[in-house]
């Protein structure tokens, strides 16, 4: 393993994050506060409790997941797309590094950034509602795995994208709807029976359900299934990236 290369990529990517530290933190704090105002105050006054948990607290895991998933994708996709766009990718392609080292550097940095942001959102939430975390280790594990797996997906999107519009396309058209329909702000059990079945095809349901379980001990799907789903998703992304670097798809002519 070329650990020096992993470190070089990771440190450079984190530099970019620290250059825009204020934006990186202020933006999620403000948007989280807005969600609490809109969902917590407006809707929360009509829905008192969900499965024994106050609505304000119930949406916290969903809010954290919403930000963590979108941030992981955008950080990682931008991280690899930018060198492609400005041409500095030549250096990565001509360096003695394999796909795993490049992925560890870029995806590791993107996941670290979104993990920070997830924790900031969690901290912000405590200003609005009382939070209890029944399974803190499981909570952290879910958070880290989600950051990693969606950063992997973001990395693939960044390699696939041929322009900035395409970079936004998948997150806007596919990921955001999946997150909103994945039970961020409600329990799947609140849906009509047919939609409950359809929702099970949404992979994000399993993530949010597992994450929420680590907070309140309640879940839409069994925790084991949630873990399997995220592990499977991570494996799928890794396989796709391995194939990309093996064939040079979209990066090597």
């Amino acid at each position, binding site marked *: 393993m070329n650990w020096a290369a992993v470190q070089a990529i990771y440190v450079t990517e984190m530099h970019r994050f620290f250059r825009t530290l204020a934006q990186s933190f202020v933006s999620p704090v403000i948007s989280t506060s807005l969600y609490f105002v809109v969902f917590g105050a407006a809707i929360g006054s009509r829905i008192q409790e969900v499965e024994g948990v106050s609505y304000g607290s119930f949406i916290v895991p969903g809010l954290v997941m919403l930000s963590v998933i979108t941030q992981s994708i955008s950080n990682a996709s931008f991280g690899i797309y930018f060198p492609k766009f400005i041409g500095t990718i030549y*250096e990565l392609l001509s360096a003695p590094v394999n796909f795993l080292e490049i992925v560890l550097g870029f995806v590791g940095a993107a996941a670290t950034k979104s993990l920070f942001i997830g924790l900031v959102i969690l901290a912000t939430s405590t200003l609005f509602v009382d939070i209890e975390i029944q399974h803190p280790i499981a909570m952290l594990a879910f958070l880290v795995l989600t950051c990693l797996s969606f950063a992997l997906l973001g990395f693939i999107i960044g390699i696939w994208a041929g322009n900035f519009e395409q970079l936004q396309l998948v997150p806007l058209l596919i990921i955001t709807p999946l997150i909103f329909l994945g039970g961020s702000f409600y329990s799947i059990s609140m849906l009509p029976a047919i939609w409950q079945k359809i929702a099970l095809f949404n992979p994000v349901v399993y993530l949010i359900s597992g994450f929420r379980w680590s907070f309140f001990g309640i879940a839409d799907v069994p925790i084991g299934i949630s873990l399997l789903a995220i592990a499977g998703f991570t494996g799928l992304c890794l396989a796709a990236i391995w194939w990309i670097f093996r064939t040079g798809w979209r990066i090597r002519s």
Partner: protein
Amino acid sequence: MTAIVEIRNLRKTYAGGFEALKGVSLKIEEGEILALLGPNGAGKTTLISTICGITNPGGGSVTVNGHDVVADYRNARRVIGLVPQEINLEPFTKVIDTVKFSRGLFGKPRDDAYIEKILRQLSLWDKKDSRSMELSGGMKRRVLIAKALAHEPRVLFLDEPTAGVDVELRKDMWEIVAELKANGVTIILTTHYIEEAEAIADRVGVISKGELLLIEEKDALMARFGQKHLQIDLQDPTSEIPKSLSDYDLTLSDDGGCLQYNYDTRGERTGITQLLNDIAAAGLVLRDLRTEESSLEEIFVSLVREEVA
């Protein structure tokens, strides 16, 4: 000398069907400066990109320092530095950070003293904390060289290093290349400035349409193809070449004040002594004499023309 880069029957056809390399074979000796000359689209950049790992080869093989660039890419790439044709730098990164990044990427441990040495060598030390976007085009090119040298490569590829830079910077670049050669670095540069190859290369390769037309010692190439011209300035202009000189390959300038004698350096006898005697016998008085060699440009143009024909 031993070959540090060996290219055997290298082929590359792009997805659109364009055949950029048609079986190029070439050995590059350790410590030499090889200039690859060719018109735009000849395959120079594809050749370099394939050796460095940016482009996948379509056939054939390349070894660098004995390591195959595909099967054993780690060991091959560790000794290669690449300065690309385009100025590709992240605009917001400081000079020193981007150079340190390059060193790390190639697996070398941190060495601040070495980074300082190359930045000073390239007159970049004063700019080490400047962001790339704040630098002039010439300085950016130096940063690219510093990045390529950051991991102490033994082979340096310079893809059109002086394309679009002013004369002064071009001369600076040649000095840098000479210093690198003195430090034992093997240098392969592509250029379509013949003057550049003529000024700094040990050997010259000519590529056209994906084929290596020739590869030869620069001086030998000049001698082999070298036509020389003897310019004979006359004291008094003449209206025509005297009949007694009609056996010589002579041309008269429009103003009648200068005769040009074309001769081949490959010939055993150049005929100059006899010509000067015959000129004197014809009653012409000489004012000045000078000789000119054919430039690589003329050689190159004639080679490419032969190829087209």
